[in-house]
């Protein structure tokens, strides 16, 4: 059953060919066997998962028939989950048992999806390799020497290794799409404001967005149907009519205009990635799509702009971790300031500290206009580039990441090299657009390659349609790593 899609699992449950308890047991057994190798989970709690599965089975027994009722899911450890450890990959929250559920979590609970556990991640979602986690790096199931990407690296690895049929992720600069690409799975970041940020530990609030990670575009559509929705507790949650994100999956692609940004296809993309993306473009032409060249002239500025705005917002958001009400407090301290300074120095890892320092600096007196305001002005130019491009095309296509998964440790010494692995994803967050990654081949090293689709605002259903039609014509998404 571990290779079944969510739709197939749902059908098996509806036909009583399996139960949620049986399904969860199978996945929990796989986690017990393989997680010591992959380190994809920070917390697994068999009793809790099975208790949730029993409730789902009872609900089915009473005649309930929700699409995903009883299908298990793993949650990124950035989502507050009542009664479960919620660490955000940090020593700062290593002892934090959340007293409440994030909105996204309560949506999945209401849908009756038991949680298989909390997945590993870069500390406070700051990283592109999962190596900044206090709980150790995650291994890529395709090659244990490789990183899984980040920050939702545990989520991507657990879906790739079929330790879970689906997982939640969050994406601030590529944290769903880049690990999805590096682990050969499908992941979607919705339009900013579609999923509530309530209870999702904040990194950069104007960019953070939750989304689904799974084996296919169709599975992601079903998950987004559960996750999306208005929530008054998030001031940026958008009040929109409920929509079925799976409604357009089966539409043919005849007449589809695919935009190819020339800035995506220049130097910087590895030859094997370029080849796989070109092959995907050829496949789309066969499916009836036309391609048009578009331009995103300010894209090269998205990484510098991001490394001003995201740290600025992070330095404000992370000021709440002071060792007073929850989280880590230093054992020895003098006065109150000393307690703050020692607790934060001990609780945060090196990358988080770097970003807090950058953010504090760019927001400080005398530098605010030159950095923070300049970055916000450039953000508008980057967003306008997309608006112009979407006048000529329906969906934009390109690579998700410039290379396949790199080796563990390869980029640790140089933060700037690490930051550049998100070069194709960051602009999408700055503009607030939906984007996704789907598998489109393998590199010379046998590691997966991701194809990125970018939709116009609220065009998730169209983007999922474009991804699903590709997945009907190809089988990259159904490949699984050998030996697992």
């Amino acid at each position, binding site marked *: 059953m571990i290779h079944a899609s969510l739709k197939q699992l749902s059908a098996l449950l509806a036909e009583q060919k399996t139960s949620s308890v049986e399904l969860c047991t199978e996945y929990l057994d796989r986690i017990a066997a393989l997680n010591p190798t992959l380190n994809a989970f920070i917390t697994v709690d068999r009793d809790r998962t099975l208790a949730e599965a029993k409730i789902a089975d009872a609900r089915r027994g009473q005649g309930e028939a929700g699409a995903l009722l009883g299908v298990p899911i793993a949650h990124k450890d950035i989502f507050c989950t009542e009664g479960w450890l919620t660490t955000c990959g940090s020593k700062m929250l290593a*002892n*934090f048992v959340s*007293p409440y559920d994030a909105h996204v979590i309560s949506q999945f609970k209401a849908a009756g999806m038991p949680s298989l556990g909390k997945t590993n991640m870069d500390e406070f979602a700051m990283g592109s390799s999962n190596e900044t986690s206090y709980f150790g790096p995650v291994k890529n199931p395709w090659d244990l020497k490789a990183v899984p990407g980040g920050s939702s690296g545990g989520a991507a690895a657990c879906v790739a290794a079929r330790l879970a049929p689906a997982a939640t992720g969050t994406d601030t600069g590529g944290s769903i799409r880049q690990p999805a690409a590096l682990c050969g799975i499908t992941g979607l970041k919705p*339009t*900013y*404001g579609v999923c509530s940020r309530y209870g999702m530990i904040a990194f950069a609030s*104007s*960019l953070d967005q939750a989304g689904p990670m799974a084996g296919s575009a169709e599975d992601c559509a079903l998950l987004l149907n559960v996750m999306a929705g208005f929530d*008054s507790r998030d*001031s*940026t949650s*958008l009040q929109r009519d409920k929509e079925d994100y799976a409604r357009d999956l089966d539409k043919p692609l005849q007449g589809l205009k695919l935009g190819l940004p020339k800035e995506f296809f220049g130097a910087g993309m590895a030859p094997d990635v370029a080849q796989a993306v070109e092959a995907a473009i050829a496949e789309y032409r066969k499916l009836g799509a036309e391609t048009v060249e578009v331009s995103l002239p*300010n894209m*090269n*500025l998205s990484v*510098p702009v991001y*490394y*001003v705005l995201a740290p600025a917002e992070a*330095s404000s958001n992370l*000021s709440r971790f*002071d*060792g*007073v*009400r*929850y*989280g880590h*407090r230093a054992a020895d301290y*003098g006065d*109150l*300031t*000393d*307690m*703050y*300074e*020692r607790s*934060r*120095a001990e609780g*945060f890892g090196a990358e988080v*500290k770097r970003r*807090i*320092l950058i*953010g*504090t*600096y760019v927001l400080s007196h005398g530098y605010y206009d*030159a950095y923070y305001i*300049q970055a*916000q*002005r*450039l*953000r*508008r*130019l980057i967003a306008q580039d997309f608006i112009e491009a979407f006048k000529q095309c329906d969906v934009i296509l390109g690579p998700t990441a410039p290379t396949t998964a790199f080796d563990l440790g390869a980029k640790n010494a*140089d*933060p*700037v090299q690490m*930051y550049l692995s998100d070069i194709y994803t960051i602009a999408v967050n*700055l*503009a*607030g*657009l939906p984007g996704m990654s789907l598998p489109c081949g393998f590199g010379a090293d046998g590691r997966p390659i991701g194809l990125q689709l970018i939709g116009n605002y609220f065009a998730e259903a169209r983007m999922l349609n474009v991804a699903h039609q590709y997945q009907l014509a190809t089988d990259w998404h159904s490949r699984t790593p050998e030996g697992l």
Partner: protein
Amino acid sequence: MLLTNEDILRIARLARLRVTETEAAQTGEQLNGIFKLIEQMQAVDTNGVAPMAHAQEVYQRLREDAVTEPNRREAFQAIAPQTEAGLYLVPKVIE
């Protein structure tokens, strides 16, 4: 622009992060590398471009002035480093 050790220690103080002199030197080197990347922004003339704070033009919603949250002090304080009689304990601030 190059950040000096004094700059790093000053920012660290503002951010309430204890940084030793040795750490400051290491951190300074990395931050200067990152700022070299960031400096690319300065090459663009953005006169007349309105800063974009947010992806959507949203405004603060108003709600009725009514109590919506239950009192869960015990649950919240159960995870606190140090409490006493319903209060969070910190080092003495006022003599």
